[in-house]
Each structure stands twice: as C-alpha cells, then as structure tokens.
C-alpha cells in the first residue's frame, strides 16, 4: 500500500480515537456536574454578571464622555447662555451625532432650546438637579423605551461658576416591544448584549425621586439581579439575567461536544471518500464505479446527518424548517441548509458520472459489451427511461422547493434577493446544473451506443428521430401508469432538445479531438445558459399549475363565516388580557396610559391576524383612558364605546354576576341557546359568554367584546371589584386579505401568506345582493357584475356552490373563481335561510407575460451574479497555474471587442438607472408637495394660535379636534405639529405604538422654523423600512407660522419600491440579455477572425515538421485570404524543390554505393585473378613441384575471397532490407546478460554489470535488440587492445530506460565520431562500415536514441535511450 494511504488510515484511526475521547470527557463532565455544581454555578454567574456590568458601565462612560465633550464646547456654552436656538441647532449639527444618541438642551428656565433624536421628557426635578451643578445618570422609561440618560450642566459662557443650561444625552437600553418583525426590532444596549454574550437581560429602573426599584416578582424569580450604579455612584436600577441552571450547563457541554464531533466526522468522511475513490479507480467497470460512488455519497450524507454536520456548527435559521422543509429522504431535505448540502452531493455525483462517461468516450470503448443489436436498443431505451425519470425528478424537486418553502420566491421589492431567497435560488441553480450534467452524461452514453452500433444502419442513420420517439413513448406509458408528469410537455421538449444538441457537440469534440477538455469555462457557461432557460420556466410552470389550488383555498377562506372564529378570538384574548398583572398595576397610573392599549394589543395574538382590531381601556366610569386602533378610519373608537355603552353598560348587563363555571357559559353558547338581547336590528346581537359580553354591530361591521379588569388578589371573593374595562373590537373584511398596509406594518411576521405564492395579484370582488361591496379593481368588477345574474342562478343550482369561469375583459384574458357564500350544502349547513347572499369572485390574469418576463429577468440577474463570482475564481485559478500570463491573439481580440461593445452599454445602463431613480424621486417629491399644499388649503379656515400668541390648553384641544375632523375627510396620511409636539394625525397607530416619536424631527423643525424653508423633505426609517417625509409650514390668515404639516409615504413605500424594482429589473435585465448576445457575437467574430491565422500557424508547424503537402482552404478574399494563397503557393514550390534535392541526393548515394560495391568487389578479384594466372602459368610450364600445394593455396584464397564477396553482399543486403519485426514488451536486462555470457569467454576483458532490476520494460524486437547490443559490445571488445574492461549499466530516467556501455579502449577522435553512423565508414581493415549504420536504423525504428561520447586514450561511452513501455 502506498505510504500516503497508510498515513490517511492512521489519521482516520486517530480521529476515531478522538471521537471516543470526546465522548468520554463529555460523559465525565456531565456526570460530575452534580458534585461540582455549586462551583460551576458561582463561576458562570459571576462571569455573566461581570460581562453585563462591564458592558453597561462602558456604555455609560461613552455617554458621559460625549456629554462632557458637548457641554464644554464653547459655542454650546455661549449659545445656551444667550438662548440662541438657531445657532444651537447648528452647533449640534457639527457634532454629527450617532443615530443611537438623543440629545436635549434646556436653558436655566427649563425651556427646551434644541434637540436631536427621540424625546426624553425629563422631569422638573431632574432638570433642577442638573442645573445645580451635578453630572449624573438615570434610567428612565419613556413610552416603550427605557433610556440611560446622562444629565450634565452647561456652564455660563461668561461666568464659569454659574450654570446657564442643562444638557441631556440618552441612549436606549431596551424596548418593550413584544412584536418582532422588520419594523419592530429591539434596539439599544441590551440588543448588543444579547448578540455579543447570548444573555437575555431585563431592566428595572429606580424611581428618579425615591430611588426605589419595583421589580416584577415574576421576572425576578429564577433570575440573577445586578445593581446598576450611575455616574454619581447612586443606585439607578437593576438588571436581571436568567439564572444559570444545570440544564443550560449540560446543554452547553452537549453543544460543544456535538460541534467538535461533527467537525471530526467531516474530516473522517473526507478521508474515507479519498480512500474509497482510489479503490474505485481499481475497478474496471465504470458503471459499477458510478454506482459505488453514489452509494458512498449516500452513506456520507446520512453519516453527516447522524452527526449533525454542518447544522451542529452553524445552528442558524438556515437549518430550521421555517425557510424550507421536506420530509423526503429521511432528513436530508429537512431544512434549507440540509437541502443545500444535499444539492452539493448531487452535484458531486453528477460531476463524477460526467467524468466517467467522458472517459468512456475518450477511451473509445464500449460501455457494456453487448453485441446483439436488439439488446443494444433495449439498453438505449433503458438509458432514455432513466433520463426521463431524471427530468421528472428534477420537476418534483423544484416543486418541493417552491411549495415546501416559506420564502417569498418572487419578491418584487428588491433586485438583490435577501439571504433566504438567495439560498433557495442557489439551490435551484445547483440542482439544475447537476441535472444537466447528469442528463448530458446519459445522452452521451446513448450517442456512444449508437456510434458503436455500426452494423445497425437504421439506428445510426435515424437516431435523431428514434431518441425523441422513444422519449415520447416513455412519456405516454409513464402518464398512463403513474399519472401526469411533473414537467410540462413544452419544457420537456426544450430540455430534451438542449440535451441532444449539447451532447452531440461534446460527443463530436470528444471523439474528434484528442485533447478536448471537459472542465472548461465554455462547457460551464453552456450549462449555466441552459439553467437560465429552463429553471425559471419549470418554476413558473409549477406556480401556474398550483395557482388553481391556491385560488380555491383563498376562495374557501373568504367564503367561510368568520363570526365564530372572531368571537372565539375576542373571548380568548380578552380573558388573557384581563389576567395580565401589568394592566392592573398600570390602569391606575395616569403616566402609563399612553401606550397601555398598544401594550395589550401587542401582547395578544391579534398581530398575527388579517383583521382590523382595536383595544380600548375604560376606567370604572366608562371613560376612555387608553386606546389603540389599527385602522381608525375603519373602526372608530368613539363609535364602539358609544355602542357598547348603549347596549351593555346602560342596560346594566355588565353588573350580572359572572358565572364562574365557565363551561356552563361555553355550553350555552355551543347549544346556540345563548341569551340574546333584543336589538333594534335583528343582525345586531349581544351575547354573554363567560365574563365577556360580545356585541355585534352589523351596520359598522364589527364585533366587539367587553371584559372587566378585576383586582387579581380579590378575584373570586366576595370583595371582587373592578378597576376598569377592556374592549376589544375586530372588523373582518375581505379587504384585509389583500393585506392593507396598516395591518401589514403591525403583523408580527414578514413571511408570506397564500397570496404571495401567486405570480400576479388576484383581483378580489365581493358582491352582496348583486352589488359590489368590495373590489380591488373596480373596472374589472363592473365587468363581472354584468353577467352576475346568470352566474348566481348557476351557482345556486350547483351542489358545491363554486365554479371557475374564463372571461375576456378589455382584451385581456382572465379566469375567475366564484363562490357563493353562506349556503353550502354538504357541510350540514344551519344558515340556509340567512337571507344574506354573497358572491366572492377571485380573478387572475391568464397569460401575464410581463410578470413572467420580470421573474425571468430577475433570475437571470441572480445567475449572472453567481456566474461572475465563479468566473473570477476560475480566472484566478487559471492565472495561478500559469507561470506567466499569456494572452493569445484570439483572447486579445475578444477582450478588445468586448470592452468596446460593453462600455457604451454600461454607461447607458448607469445613466438609465440614475435617470429612473431621479425621475422617481422627483415624482414622489411632487406628489408630497401637492398633497401638502392641498392640506394646507383645506386647513386654512381652522383657527390655530400662532407660535408667539397666547393660548390655553382647551383652545388647543378644540383646534386638535378641528384638524382631526378635516383630516378624516381625505384619504392621505398627514400629521399636524404645533411647535414641536404632534397635535393631530391620521396615523394614530404609529404614534401610540411608539414607532414614531410624537416630537417633530429636529432637522425638519430647524429648517422650517429657523431657516424659514417652505418645504423640507427627509428620508426617515422605521426599522428596516425607509420612507420619504415632507414638511411644510402652516400659516394662519395673518401669515404667521402656526404649525407644521407633514405627510409621509410610509404606507406607500412598498408599492414605490416594487415599481422601482420592476422598472430597474426590466432595464437591467434587457441590458444583460443584450450583453449576453453581444458576448456571443463577439466570441463568434473573434473566432472567425483568428481561425485562419490559427490554421496558418498549424500549417507552418506541420511544414517545419517535414510535412510538405500542407494546403489551407481559403474562405475569404481579403488580406488573410491573400496570405493563405501565398502560403499555399510557397508550400507547393517548397515541395517541388525538395523533391529535386531528394532525387539528387538519391543519385549521389547510389553512385557512392555503386562505387563502393565496385571497389569492394574489385578488391578480392585481383588476388583471385593473380592466383589463377599463377596456377595457369605453373600448369603451362608443367612445374609439377609444389603444384598441388599452390593449387590448394589458390583454392583456399579463391574460396576465401568468394566468402568475402558473399559477406559483402549479405551486409549490403542487410542494410537495404526491411525485415519483419516482432515488437513486444521486454525487459532489457536478460538480453544484455545473454550477450555478456557469449563474450565472457574472452579472459582479457572484464565485464562489469550494473543492471537495475527496476529499470522498466521497453517495446522492441528481441532478435533486433540482440543484434544491436552484440554489435556495440563487439565494437568495444575490438577496440580494447590488450586487456581492459567493459561496464554495462541500465537505469531509469524520466520516461526512458537507458543502457550505457562503457569501455576503457583507446577512444575516438572527433572526426571519427562525426562519421560513425555513415554507411561504409569503418576504422577496421576487415569491416564493411555497415554495422553501426544498421544499428542506428534499427534503433530509429524502435524510437530509441543512440549517442556516443568518447575521449582519446580514456574510453568510449555508448548510451541507448528506449521509451518506457
């Protein structure tokens, strides 16, 4: 086993050990908690207390420093002394105070001079104490906020020992808001504490005069108390934090244990995956590899799930089911986070499968060895079935993502999606990407199968008809057996077409090119483009397909009789409210009246309902002491109180002794035998229900409940007595379903309702006795009204009392769902003869193209964002890989084209955006100005005292009522400020809930009153919502300033944002599409221009490689065309001249060979001729002596010379002949060993072997190799004069197997070395000079290299380099 894997396995064992150790340690700590609990408790509590105290003191110190800094400023001192308010406002401006600080400056007469931020409302004694020269801090409750206030005296400018004013700076510690949504988010010091230390503190201020602290017993129980000391070391309040308990401690240990474990498990799974993938590589069947890899991923996914990874590390909202949750897969999709992780696993699988498939194509082998054509066809059908199921699975997954998610998928208010939507969209993109990668792999295998079916011509020829035909058949069978598919036909066809086109493209490239890269930016971009085309289409199709279900759901909800539900809610909530101790304590405290009703309302569950509701608190004399009304124009507080007084209080129903056995009352009502008190109208009912009296006012369309507030300690005793009463009124209208802005602002959740799941807003109409009583689009409703009579009859005859109808209004197609209300047979209806007949119509545009385009563009914008991020990452990786960045001609061309084309578009887009935003702002401004002007005009007859004049409170109250009356006559938002205080408003709810301060904004006050501006606009915030406010001075008839009117676009802001987003999306989206098209054109152009140049380059390369018949096709007749023509001409000329040279060379070689052959043949001929002539002369002269001897000699000589001739002939033959070679993988060492053993008989030569057994194998002919090395070794032996040695070495170098043969012979001179491999060159008298030439030729054939190095008198080294097999 490789060393690396051994290390990995060791690490895994180490991790497993660690998991064990952690489990043990955790167990140890958990079991020992009881023994050491006291110590742990003391330590943890002390630590928490210290954190809280330190943080509070630091905030206090910061506030003090700021306060000192301002109060010691010379300008502030000077202007305070001189009461120069205007200048003081300007001075405060220079400090650029953080928004969290509020500031007020008073003079020595305790008159407020300048201010900033929210009001502090200091008590008289506080200011007095401040003026006496003390710097101190207090904790003060104003409205729903608790402030830390630092009071500092401001010294007189001229006489430093006297104080001329007081400076107050405050910061919010905590807010008492019970509502939690975008608008009601708590701010202040405690918020920071919660975020930083995860401690949940509560504050109890000390009474400013007495210093006593009233702590709520319920809150102090089980809590730790921390004393807070002010700057002057006085006790100013208490903070309570939840006591550290055992369960919390154990949980802390468990969380830590879980976290460490999940990280370790992650690393362990990574190691297992690496090892497994290596093992997978050993498998030969790729199909099996893919299956096993899939199983591995499934295993790891569930392993992670089991060990809570990554949810254990990041326990945010992402891993809670509130964004998204599906029960599919036993938990792998139980939250958006888990789905995100799962989608990455899917991506990993898709990529792995693609790689395997691509390798199959590259290897040009078959996937499955099937020879039968029919079986092959079956295999193709199986693969296409798999593909079809994958498309369906894709549809199911996207469906689940939409319908198991609470994310508002089609958010119209923002271009850049929020975190939740971003995550969900990213998941959609990952899943779509993986789907395409996987589907393409399947399609590639199909194409490969078709390619291999060489014999089946039909399959090969008509594949593009056969594939869709098979898919259509599968689709038909699927729908026949399993019902309708999850993906629309058209989308399915588009997906299949895209898949075929892309797969064909990849397939052709992979087969044609050797170096086609799968992981390229081009492939990535194409798949992303596919995702852009199909993912929104599938999503929109899904939403459309379930629109019917949702509209029916809304219709049913609307047609339901809400009365029971409302009565239940009222009784339930009133019961809960009357039990709140806070109410009993505060109902007697006049200073707490202002927000009391809102406090009760926010504590109730009414904020979760689509109702208009109002809470009114009455004292024992039935006078209003506090009220909160969600929409004062719909349910009027005074009217409710009057009505209840008339029907309940005046009739003394409330004095009835309550029936303490609540069930009796419940039963009475359930039996519908409840006591009804006769009313003027039949519809108006009064019901006693438990302690609650319920009244219904049909004329004003509300149901109200009244409950007495009893003294808690005396409840159920004979001394039971009331301290006041609570009235809760609810008005339910269809209008509320459309989420009117007021209700939305106060709803405690910002997630969607069913309407948000629809693409376009439905138009809801309610008809009562044939007349429209509510409509969200009157024009359309009037069209519906025309055919209502016929429809009513149709609905009455229908058993279900509901129907769908297609309409065509104003050339636009609608479909409408009609429900007849109050008469539904089949539900055991009791109210058959109620007489009240209502029809509810919900209309929806059928083909809302603009909406679809909007969402398409929004998705494209999102994908582009992701794409750019990936592009940057990809480029960085690419650049890092390269040692130096080389941009070739084509890229340069592309970049320059792209820059030139995109710059004007960017400029245009930026300009359009700013133009639209500017235009939008101007419109809003004009709207505000005209609204303010018309109000100003409307109020001109109202007598309001001027700022300088004298007035009494009663006059002011009268004026307030007058302003209010006028306000209610118009449908706009207005506020009227007298001096700095709010006199009247159309949006009481915003001030009563303390969302807005009742003091005017300091900037507005300064600009209108002191800078005498005629109009002042400012953007203000409530929580996360920004809105524009306009201020205008109100002047009375004598043209003196008597108030400030303001109007805010608060409730319209969402609509405004939606409009702006829509316009910007359309513009940016269109530009984006233009950019994408430009990119394609630019890419095409750059390819077109650079291609001939690239071809020219390839042709030149071929030419330099010796290929002379290179010709390029010329496509154009421009400069490049001429260049190509010249090149072609040049190659033709070159070819001709080369052929001439070759011929000349060949002639020369032949001449040389002929000369040498003639010379060689002539050499033996001379001795032969001489010998025969000598023999003949002996015979002629009859010299018998020595004749026989001479004959023998002559014969020997002739035979010898004939042998020589034969040898010469065979040597030449060998050189010229091309013997058939048998190449095989060989180890060179045994061959060398054999040769050495042949020559080892020669004792004068010492053979030194240095043969490396790991040198590796080579590809060669055994016989040939034998001859080659014999030749080389023989040469070495012949070279050595006397004794010597020959060393033979084999070794491994890079991709080569090298053989070195070294001798210590006399060596060679340079001139000889240069001619070594020339035929007929030899230094030996007997040699033919062909040995090394033949060796060289044989080695060339084996693609091996031979080289000689030699030094005279030292020796020669021959190196032969073979390529490794």
């Amino acid at each position, binding site marked *: 086993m490789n060393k690396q894997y051994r290390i990995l396995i060791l690490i895994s064992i180490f991790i497993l050990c660690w998991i064990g150790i952690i489990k043990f340690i955790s167990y140890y700590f958990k079991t020992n908690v009881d023994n050491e609990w006291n110590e742990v408790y003391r330590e943890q509590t002390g630590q928490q207390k210290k954190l809280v105290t330190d943080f509070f003191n630091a905030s206090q110190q910061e506030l003090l420093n700021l306060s000192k800094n301002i109060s010691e400023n010379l300008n502030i001192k000077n202007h305070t002394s001189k009461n120069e308010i205007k200048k003081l406002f300007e001075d405060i401006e220079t400090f650029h105070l953080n928004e969290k600080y509020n500031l007020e400056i008073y003079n020595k007469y305790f008159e407020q001079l300048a201010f900033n931020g929210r009001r502090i409302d200091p008590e008289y004694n506080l200011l007095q104490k401040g003026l006496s020269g003390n710097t101190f801090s207090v904790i003060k409750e104003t409205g729903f906020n608790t402030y830390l206030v630092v009071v500092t005296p401001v010294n007189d400018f001229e006489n430093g020992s006297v104080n001329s004013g007081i400076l107050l700076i405050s910061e919010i510690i905590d807010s008492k808001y019970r509502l939690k949504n975008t608008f009601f988010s708590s701010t202040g010091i405690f918020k920071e504490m919660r975020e930083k230390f995860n401690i949940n503190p509560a504050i109890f201020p000390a009474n400013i005069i007495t210093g006593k602290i009233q702590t709520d017993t319920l809150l102090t129980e089980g809590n730790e108390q921390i004393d807070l000391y002010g700057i002057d070391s006085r006790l100013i309040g208490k903070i309570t934090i939840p006591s550290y308990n055992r369960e919390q401690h154990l949980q802390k240990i468990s969380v830590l244990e879980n976290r460490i474990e999940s990280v370790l498990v992650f690393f362990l799974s990574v190691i297992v995956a690496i090892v497994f993938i290596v093992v997978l590589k050993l498998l030969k069947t790729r199909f099996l590899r893919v299956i096993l890899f899939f199983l591995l991923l499934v295993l790891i996914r569930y392993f992670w799930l089991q060990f809570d990874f990554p949810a254990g590390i990041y326990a945010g909202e992402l891993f809670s089911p509130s964004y998204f949750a599906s029960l599919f897969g036993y938990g792998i999709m139980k*939250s958006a986070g888990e789905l995100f992780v799962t989608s990455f696993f899917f991506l990993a699988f898709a990529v792995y499968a693609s790689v395997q498939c691509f390798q199959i194509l590259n290897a040009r082998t078959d996937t499955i060895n099937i020879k039968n054509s029919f079986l092959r066809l079956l295999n193709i059908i199986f693969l296409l079935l798999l593909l079809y199921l994958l498309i369906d699975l894709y549809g199911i997954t996207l469906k689940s993502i939409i319908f198991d998610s609470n994310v508002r998928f089609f958010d119209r208010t923002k271009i850049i999606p929020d975190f939740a939507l971003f995550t969900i969209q990213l998941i959609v993109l990952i899943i779509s990407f993986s789907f395409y990668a996987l589907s393409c792999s399947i399609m590639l295998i199909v194409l490969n199968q078709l390619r291999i079916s060489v014999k089946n011509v039909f399959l090969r020829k008509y594949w593009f008809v056969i594939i869709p035909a098979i898919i259509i058949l599968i689709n038909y069978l699927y729908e026949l057996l399993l019902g309708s598919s999850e993906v629309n036909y058209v989308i399915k066809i588009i997906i299949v077409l895209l898949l075929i086109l892309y797969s064909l493209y990849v397939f052709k490239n992979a087969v044609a090119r050797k170096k086609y890269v799968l992981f390229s930016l081009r492939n990535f971009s194409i798949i992303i483009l596919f995702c852009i085309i199909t993912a929104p289409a599938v999503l929109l199709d899904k939403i459309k397909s379930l629109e019917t279900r949702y509209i029916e759901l809304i219709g049913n909800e609307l047609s339901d009789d809400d009365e029971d539900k409302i009565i*239940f809610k009222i009784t339930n909530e009133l019961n809960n409210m009357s039990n709140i101790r806070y109410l009993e304590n505060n109902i007697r405290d006049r200073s707490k009246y202002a927000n009391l009703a809102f406090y009760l309302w926010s504590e109730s569950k009414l904020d979760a309902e689509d109702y208009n509701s109002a809470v009114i608190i009455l004292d024992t004399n039935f006078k209003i002491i506090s009220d909160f009304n969600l929409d004062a124009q719909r349910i009027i507080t005074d009217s409710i109180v009057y009505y209840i007084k008339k029907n309940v209080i005046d009739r003394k129903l409330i004095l009835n002794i309550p029936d303490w056995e609540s069930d009796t009352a419940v039963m009475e009502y359930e039996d519908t035998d409840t006591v009804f008190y006769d009313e003027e109208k039949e519809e108006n009912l009064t019901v006693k229900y438990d302690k609650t009296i319920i009244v219904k006012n049909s004329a004003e369309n509300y149901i109200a409940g009244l409950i007495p507030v009893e003294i808690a300690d005396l409840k159920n005793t004979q001394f039971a007595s009331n301290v006041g009463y609570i009235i809760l009124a609810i008005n339910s209208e269809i209008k509320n379903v459309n989420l009117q802005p007021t209700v939305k602002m106060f709803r405690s959740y910002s997630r969607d309702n069913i309407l948000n799941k629809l693409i376009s807003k439905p138009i809801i109409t309610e008809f009562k006795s044939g007349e429209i009583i509510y409509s969200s689009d009157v024009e359309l409703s009037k069209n519906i009204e025309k055919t209502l009579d016929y429809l009513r009859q149709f609905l009455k005859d229908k058993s279900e009392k509901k129907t769908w109808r297609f309409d065509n209004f104003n050339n636009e197609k609608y479909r409408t769902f009609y429900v007849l209300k109050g008469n539904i047979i089949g539900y055991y209806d009791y109210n058959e003869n109620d007489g009240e007949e209502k029809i509810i119509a919900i209309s929806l545009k059928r083909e809302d193209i603009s909406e679809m385009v909007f969402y398409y563009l929004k998705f494209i914008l999102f994908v582009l964002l992701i794409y750019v991020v990936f592009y940057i990452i990809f480029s960085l990786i690419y650049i890092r890989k390269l040692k130096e960045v080389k941009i070739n001609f084509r890229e340069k061309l592309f970049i320059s084209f792209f820059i030139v084309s995109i710059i004007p578009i960017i400029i245009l887009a930026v300009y359009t955006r700013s133009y639209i935003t500017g235009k939008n702002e101007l419109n809003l401004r004009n709207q505000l100005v005209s609204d303010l002007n018309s109000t100003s005009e409307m109020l001109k007859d109202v007598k309001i005292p001027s700022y300088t004049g004298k007035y009494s409170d009663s006059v002011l109250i009268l004026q307030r009522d007058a302003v209010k009356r006028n306000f209610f006559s118009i449908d706009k938002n207005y506020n009227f400020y007298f001096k700095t205080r709010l006199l009247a408003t159309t949006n009481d709810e915003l001030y009563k809930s303390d969302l807005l301060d009742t003091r005017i904004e300091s900037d507005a006050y300064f600009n209108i009153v002191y800078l005498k501006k005629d109009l002042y606009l400012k953007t203000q915030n409530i929580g996360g919502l920004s809105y524009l406010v306009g201020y205008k001075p109100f002047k009375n008839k004598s043209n003196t300033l008597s108030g400030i009117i303001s109007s805010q676009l608060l409730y319209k802001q969402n609509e405004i944002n939606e409009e702006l987003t829509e316009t910007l999306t359309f513009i940016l989206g269109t530009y984006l599409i233009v950019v994408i098209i430009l990119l394609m054109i630019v890419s095409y152009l750059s390819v077109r221009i650079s291609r001939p140049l690239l071809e020219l380059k390839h042709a030149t390369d071929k030419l330099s490689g010796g290929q002379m018949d290179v010709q390029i096709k010329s496509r154009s007749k421009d400069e490049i065309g001429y260049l190509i023509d010249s090149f072609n001409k040049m190659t033709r000329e070159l070819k001709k001249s080369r052929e001439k040279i070759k011929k000349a060379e060949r002639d020369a070689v032949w001449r040389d060979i002929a000369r040498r052959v003639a010379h060689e043949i002539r050499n033996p001929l001379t001795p032969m001729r001489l010998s025969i002539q000598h023999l003949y002369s002996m015979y002629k002269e009859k010299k018998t002596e020595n004749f026989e001897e001479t004959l023998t000699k002559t014969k020997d000589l002739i035979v010898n010379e004939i042998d020589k001739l034969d040898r010469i002939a065979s040597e030449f033959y060998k050189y010229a002949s091309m013997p058939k070679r048998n190449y095989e993988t060989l180890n060179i060492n045994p061959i060398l060993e054999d040769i050495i053993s042949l020559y080892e008989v020669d004792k004068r030569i010492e053979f030194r072997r240095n043969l490396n057994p790991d040198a590796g194998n080579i590809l060669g002919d055994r016989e040939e190799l034998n001859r080659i090395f014999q030749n080389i070794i023989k040469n070495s032996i012949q070279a050595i004069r006397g004794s010597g040695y020959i060393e033979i070495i084999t070794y491994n170098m890079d991709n080569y197997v090298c053989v070195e043969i070294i001798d210590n012979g006399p060596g060679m001179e340079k001139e000889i070395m240069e001619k070594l491999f020339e035929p007929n060159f030899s230094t030996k008298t007997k040699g033919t000079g062909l040995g090394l030439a033949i060796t060289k030729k044989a080695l060339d054939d084996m693609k091996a290299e031979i080289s000689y190095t030699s030094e005279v008198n030292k020796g020669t080294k021959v190196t032969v380099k073979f390529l490794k097999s």
Partner: protein
Amino acid sequence: MYSYACNNVFSQDKWWKEQKYKSENIAEKFAQCKKTFTDVSIGLNRANINFINLYFDTEVYLNIITNEKGYYSSNQAELMLIDFMEYFRVISFNYTRSHRKNMYAFATGKYVYNRGSGSRFLDVTVSLKYRYDKWLIDQISIN
C-alpha cells in the same frame, strides 16, 4: 409518564360537553371533531407527531414561540412541531376549554414542559375547520 399523560387526556372531559344533536350526522360530525382534538392532545402528550399530522391540510397556519408565525406547508409544519416538542419536553398537555360551531371548532389548553429548572407552561390554541368531510387543523398556536 406517557401513559399517565395519555390517560389524562381522556379523563379531562370538562373541556368537552357531550350534547344531544338533532341528527345522527351532526352527532357523528362532532364526535369526529372531538376525536381530532383528542388525537392532537395525544400527539402533544406523547411528543408524537403521527397523531397530529393526520389532520394537516396542505397549508397549516402555525404560531409557535420558536418560529415566525405564518402559513407553512404540511411538511414544514410537521418538522417544526417535531423541533418544538424536542426543545420543550412535554410533562403534560390538557385542554382547558373548547368551542365548536358548524364549520369551526376551537380548543385551548396548557402545555406544561420541562426546560431548565422546574416546569413552565405555554398556551396552546388549536382551531379546526371542516373541509372535505373531515376536520382539519386550521391553526395551531403555542406561546
């Protein structure tokens, strides 16, 4: 503990008053209603979602202390309730009062749980609606 809690549900009849109805159909309808409420309470008492998810519509309105209020899909509602019951370990759940009408029925109860030192309680309101000839959960509010 579970068996105790379960018995407790059946024994606490105060919240539900058996009545004589005009027809058998109506009697059957309200018997179904009681069964639905009882199943929900068994589910809460045993911390077993399978007694509750039978009555989920495609969308369920949830108002659980740990999450944002709103309409959730039945899948989400199921997992959210599981999360809730894991976090707030039940000691007992009892209905305190109920109210039923033609198409709607409501019940409120106390969910006593163990978290940290000692036991605390949450108010639970379950409302049912009569749809497709059966009682389905319209809203669950726990806070």
